[in-house]
């Protein structure tokens, strides 16, 4: 079912992004993949952070939410727990996700809730006019500070199951990764983390730089993306060489967070009929605990 065709509500607006912004590529990949996988807009909830990136939900025609700065992961986790029938897509910028949201990223990696998380990495705070983000190499204030590599971070947390990196200048691969991510999340296999290199033409135009740095690991037959340790070693080596690996860099099997909750009586709290008679009985049982 095509989401937009059946809508009784808003018409997705034109992006507010600057011409040439990488974020267009991210939006295209997401729309392409939703269509390719026949994912209905009304069953999809796109939650976005604050930033230029954090407007993507407005352009998709799905249910959309604009989180507070840095909080999109816990919010999306709440959605995934409360209604597992939804396809949950969290999205945001590198500032949103790695700076103010860094703590939640850590814990979301650890929990592995079934949802997609797209980070549009441009190494700057686009919306606030170009300050260094945690992925900026040689930040102005403390040039020796190392840029954060979120895939490496994800590899260090043993609950992760899907760690990928795409580049808006590699749209075919990006589409593929996006579809894989959606499938991973929808199969309730856990968090599909997809960092997308998405240059900010206005404040940090890294198209040529990144074009020279990226290396496609999907194309490398010797690379075993199910081996966490090897993935880490490879990634560290490439960093040393000034290269950035692209592809589905790690894929693991670990029960998802939601699967821990969705068992026994708990299926989808959002859909529970709380007025049902058996629920009344359960409440009376609780009351009975207090009878002395």
């Amino acid at each position, binding site marked *: *079912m095509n*989401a937009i065709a*059946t*809508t*009784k*509500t*808003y018409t997705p*607006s034109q992006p507010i992004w600057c011409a040439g912004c990488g974020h267009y590529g991210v939006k295209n990949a997401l729309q392409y993949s939703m269509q390719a996988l026949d994912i209905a807009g*009304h*069953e*999809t*909830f796109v*939650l976005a952070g604050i930033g230029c990136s954090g*407007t993507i*939900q*407005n352009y998709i*025609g799905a*249910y*959309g*939410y*604009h*989180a*507070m700065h840095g*909080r999109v992961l*816990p*919010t*999306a*986790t*709440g*959605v995934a*727990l*409360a*209604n597992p*029938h*939804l396809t949950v897509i969290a999205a945001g910028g590198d500032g949103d996700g790695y700076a103010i949201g860094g*703590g*939640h990223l*850590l*814990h979301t990696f650890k929990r592995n809730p079934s949802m997609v998380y797209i980070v549009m990495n441009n190494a700057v705070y686009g919306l606030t006019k170009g300050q260094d983000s945690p992925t900026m190499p040689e930040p102005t204030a403390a040039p020796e500070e190392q840029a954060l590599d979120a895939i490496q971070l994800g590899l260090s947390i043993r609950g992760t199951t899907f760690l990928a990196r795409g580049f808006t200048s590699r749209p075919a691969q990006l589409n593929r990764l996006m579809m894989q991510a959606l499938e991973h999340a929808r199969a309730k296999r856990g968090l599909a983390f997809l960092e997308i290199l998405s240059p900010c033409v206005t404040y940090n135009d890294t198209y040529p730089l990144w074009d020279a740095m990226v290396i496609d690991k999907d194309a490398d037959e010797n690379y075993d993306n199910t081996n966490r340790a090897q993935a880490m070693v490879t990634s560290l080596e490439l960093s040393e060489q000034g290269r950035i690996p692209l592809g589905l860099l790690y894929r693991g099997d670990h029960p998802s967070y939601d699967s821990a*909750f969705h068992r*026994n*009586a*708990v*299926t989808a*709290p*959002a859909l*529970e009929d*709380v*007025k049902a008679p058996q*629920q*009344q009985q*359960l*409440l*009376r*049982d*609780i*009351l009975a605990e*207090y*009878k*002395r």
Partner: protein
Amino acid sequence: MNEIAKVNYPPLDFPATRAIDDIVITVAGQGGDGTQTIIALLTHALFHRGLHLYNTSNIASRIKGGHAATMLRGSTKWRGCLNDRFDVLMAFDTEAIEKSARWVADDGVIIYDESRAKLPEGVIAPTVTVISIPFSRIAVRELRRDLFKNCVGFGLLSRVIGLPDEEAIGCIQQQFKRLSAQDLEYNLRAFQQGLEFADAMGLTAAHSVYSLPSQKNENRLLINGNEATAFGFAAAGGRFFAGYPITPATEILDWLTKRLPRLGGIAVQAEDEMAAINIAIGAAMTGVRTMTGSSGPGIALMQESVGHCGSAEIPLVIVDCQRAGPSTGMPTKIEQSDIGMLAHGSNGDFPRVILAPGNPEECFQIGALATNLAAIAQMPIYIAQDGLSQTSETATMFDVDSVQIEYGEKLSADDVAQMKEYRRYAITDSGISPWAVPGIPGAMNLVTGNERNEWGQVVTDLPNRQAMMDKRRRKVETIRPRLPLAKEWGDDSAIIGVICMGMISGVLDEARERLEKIGVFIRCHRPRTLFPVLDDTLAFTRRYKTVFVVEHNESGQFLHLLQGAGAPAENLISLRKYDGAPYLPFQLVEALLAELE
């Protein structure tokens, strides 16, 4: 095991048995001492006597081993507070004696281990009966476990308060019904040991210090405020909770973690308070009735997100189990000092409501009401709890069946199918926009904390902005008739009014009673909606030339709220206590009289 018992303990010279209808028993020691067990046994005893109970603790720190005093008041009348003094103090260590002995009534009883501590000088009336008993020595020597000292102590205590042995044994059986037969046996033997001591001292079944009445009081439960609030939430269909441990709110998380899954719900321990409230926000947006909670420092961390709920129109119940601030403050001490934050915290203006229960029964009702109001008005509803979080009280058995579950303007897929057009933030007279949750075909919508148009699209144009602000404000007006009015009682021809919040209810009532005895008549008024300040409260502030506002904080936060809403400053007298301990009846009487002179 009879050695010590056979020692001829010097008989004491006990006065004649006194019949009382109101008693405070305090058991104090290190946290690990099991003082809780004795209190639990006493609770059984007094509960079955049909007395109203009030049970609270005074603990210095939450670490096991810190000093803790637990107080149990039993009375034929409802009290809802402690009394001025303890009638009985059982102290397990030096600190217990040092801290608590001065609070024993002149005609009270102190039971302690004199080998461990000296009684402080000059603070205990010579009329106090002092019983020294080497609890742990007995327990360890006789029963090989320090733990059993609790039942030794209970044995002695049962003779002090005049509890017939069978009743006491019944309590032990009830308390330890999940223990092995052997352990139960040991506990019963320890109890016997206590009785033998008592006998040796001259405290017999026939000659106790006190005798307590019995009254019929069926259909009661004993519950603390946190449990009751959580229960009210669940009863009104609440099925999602996210929190982070913090004293004294942790119990809500615990209670719901244990019980929500049975009901098809989920409780989550998040990595911090920001995560907690945002997980809650995520859940709430799917339509499940959701709550989060914390104490002051955690609520402070949640402020940005609370404003977001107000802006984005997300229904959320937020319980603040207040404790003494500022900052980390005194986590185990009571205060009512987050009111200002709840009413005015976070950036910008958004609709919010603060409800404040005054006893566990109201916690249940307000827990349920808040859940409904949040759903109806799609906005944050605060519950401001205070010492109630750390207090258990008897209450009339809750009526879970009568709790209504109201959905407000939540739309089903069928509803949406009937509609030609759906706007998430439709501007309506009530301010409330029909609400379709994700999953419903055709109703896709955008939820945001930026200013937006009716579709949820971010816009900044001026008339839209104004209309959206006005719409959100109207929601409070729409639910205003549903907001609980104040409880008002006392002399209705009085010329003095007294306003209080939450836990002060009980002590104010006791103060009222005492004042009446000396010919001072007051009218008491306890708002259950703190914000917005309702008209009944404003009318009350105008009705009397002298209206006391009694609160547990330093700056008079509630006074400011009242005045901010237009209450006449010249009528109001502010009484504030902010040392971390609740008013005792005599303190409140004195404070009121001091201002009246």
